[in-house]
C-alpha cells in the first residue's frame, strides 16, 4: 500500500495487488517504474470505448472508525440532509417492519448500499475485464464487469449484477438485479429495497484516500434518488483480509433482547 501514493493512474498489464510483502528497495523501484509508465501512457482501451484513464484503486482499504463516522440510524443517511423520502408503499413497509425479521440476524450478507458503509476493510483488485471487490464484512465478493457484457435478464442475487466503466479518471459502477430485501435500503431504519433498486457508485482517488459517491434509485419505495459520499483510508501495510464466517447463533443472539413487536 505504500506504493499507492506515488501513482493515481495506471494502464493494465496485470492486476494490481497490495505490495506489503515487497522489500523497500523493490517498492522504490516499482514506484519509479510506475511513475514512468503513468507519465508515458496512463490509459488503456476499454470495451467499445476510446482510451481512458484508469485510476489506481487497487489495494486494501480501511472503512473503519478512523475513516468516517460509524453507521447507524442517522448515518450515512442524515435526517434533513440526504435521508430518503419514501413513497406510500415504502412508508407502509417501514411501519410494518419488525427488527427481528431483518435478514442479517440469520447471517444473510449485507448488500448495496449498506455494505459499502460498513466499518470494515475491503480489498480491490483491478483486472482488464473486471474489478473485484472483496469485503471483509460477510465474506462478500462483488465483480464489476468492464467487458460490456449484457445484464442477465432473470438472474437476481443479493449483490446484483454490476457493470463498470472508467470515466473521467473514476470508476463508475451500475448495479441492478437485486433480490427483494425487507431491510435492503439500510441496516437501521427498516426501509426495504426491491428488484428495481439501482445503485450507482463512482470511485476515485483523492491523494492517499479512496472516495466514493453512491446513488440509490428504487421507484418501488423511494420518491427520488438519494446519495451519500464517503471515503476509505489506506489499509495497514501488509494487511490480509480476515474470514468473517458469520455465526448464525451469534447473529441472531440479540433477538432475545427485543420487546417483540408481533406475537
Amino acid at each position, binding site marked *: 500500500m505504500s506504493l499507492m501514493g506515488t501513482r493515481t493512474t495506471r494502464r493494465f498489464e496485470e492486476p494490481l495487488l497490495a505490495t506489503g510483502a515487497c522489500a523497500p528497495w523493490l517498492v522504490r523501484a516499482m514506484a519509479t517504474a510506475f511513475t514512468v509508465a503513468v507519465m508515458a501512457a496512463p490509459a488503456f482501451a476499454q470495451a467499445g470505448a476510446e482510451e481512458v484513464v484508469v485510476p489506481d484503486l487497487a489495494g486494501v482499504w480501511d472503512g473503519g*472508525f478512523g475513516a468516517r463516522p460509524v453507521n447507524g440510524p442517522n448515518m450515512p443517511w442524515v435526517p434533513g440532509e440526504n435521508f430518503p423520502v419514501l413513497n406510500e408503499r415504502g412508508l407502509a413497509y417501514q411501519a410494518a417492519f419488525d427488527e427481528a425479521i431483518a435478514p442479517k440476524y440469520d447471517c444473510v450478507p449485507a448488500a448495496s448500499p449498506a455494505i459499502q458503509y460498513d466499518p470494515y476493510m475491503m480489498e480491490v483488485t483491478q483486472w482488464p475485464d473486471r474489478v473485484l471487490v472483496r469485503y471483509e464484512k460477510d465474506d462478500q465478493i462483488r465483480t464489476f464487469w468492464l467487458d460490456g457484457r449484457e445484464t442477465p435478464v432473470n438472474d437476481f442475487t443479493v449483490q446484483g449484477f454490476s457493470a463498470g466503466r472508467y470515466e473521467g479518471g473514476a470508476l463508475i459502477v451500475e448495479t441492478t438485479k437485486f433480490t427483494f430485501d425487507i431491510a435492503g435500503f439500510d441496516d437501521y431504519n427498516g426501509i426495504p429495497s426491491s428488484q428495481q433498486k439501482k445503485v450507482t457508485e463512482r470511485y476515485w482517488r483523492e491523494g492517499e484516500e479512496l472516495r466514493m459517491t453512491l446513488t440509490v434509485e428504487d421507484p418501488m419505495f423511494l420518491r427520488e434518488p438519494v446519495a451519500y459520499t464517503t*471515503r476509505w483510508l489506506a489499509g495497514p501495510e501488509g494487511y490480509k483480509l480476515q474470514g468473517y464466517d458469520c455465526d448464525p447463533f*451469534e447473529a441472531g443472539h440479540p433477538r432475545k*433482547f427485543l420487546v*417483540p413487536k408481533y406475537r
Partner: protein
Amino acid sequence: MKALLWISGVVLVGTVLVTSVGAHHASGPFYDPEKSVEAVGTVTEFVFRNPHSFVYVDAMNADGTTTAWEVEMGASVSMSRRGWTPETIKAGDQIKVVGQPSRAPGTFGICCAELTKPDGSPLRP
C-alpha cells in the same frame, strides 16, 4: 446531500473498541440507553465471533442469588485489529461490566459496555 461525512469519526476510535454493536445493528431496539446496569462477577465464557462477540458473566446479587449476564460486544474481525483474541478474556476471570440493560423483560443482556477489572483498572488486550 451532505458532503464527505467522516470528520467526527476519529473521536469514536477510543470508545467503540468493546462497546459498539453499531457495525451490525442499532443498539436502541435491544437495549435501553436511558438506563445503566452494573455487573461484577466471574466470566463463564467468552465467545469471540462475528457478527457479535459475547462475554457471559455470573454476578452475585445482594440477596445471594446469581444472575447470568450476557454482554454483547463487537465483531471479532474488528476487535482483533485492536489486539483482542479469544484468550483476552478467560473463564474464571473476575470482571466488572457497566452498560445498557436489555429491554425484553426477564432477559439480562448488556450492551455498549465498559469492561474493567473489578477494581476499575482497564481490561485491555
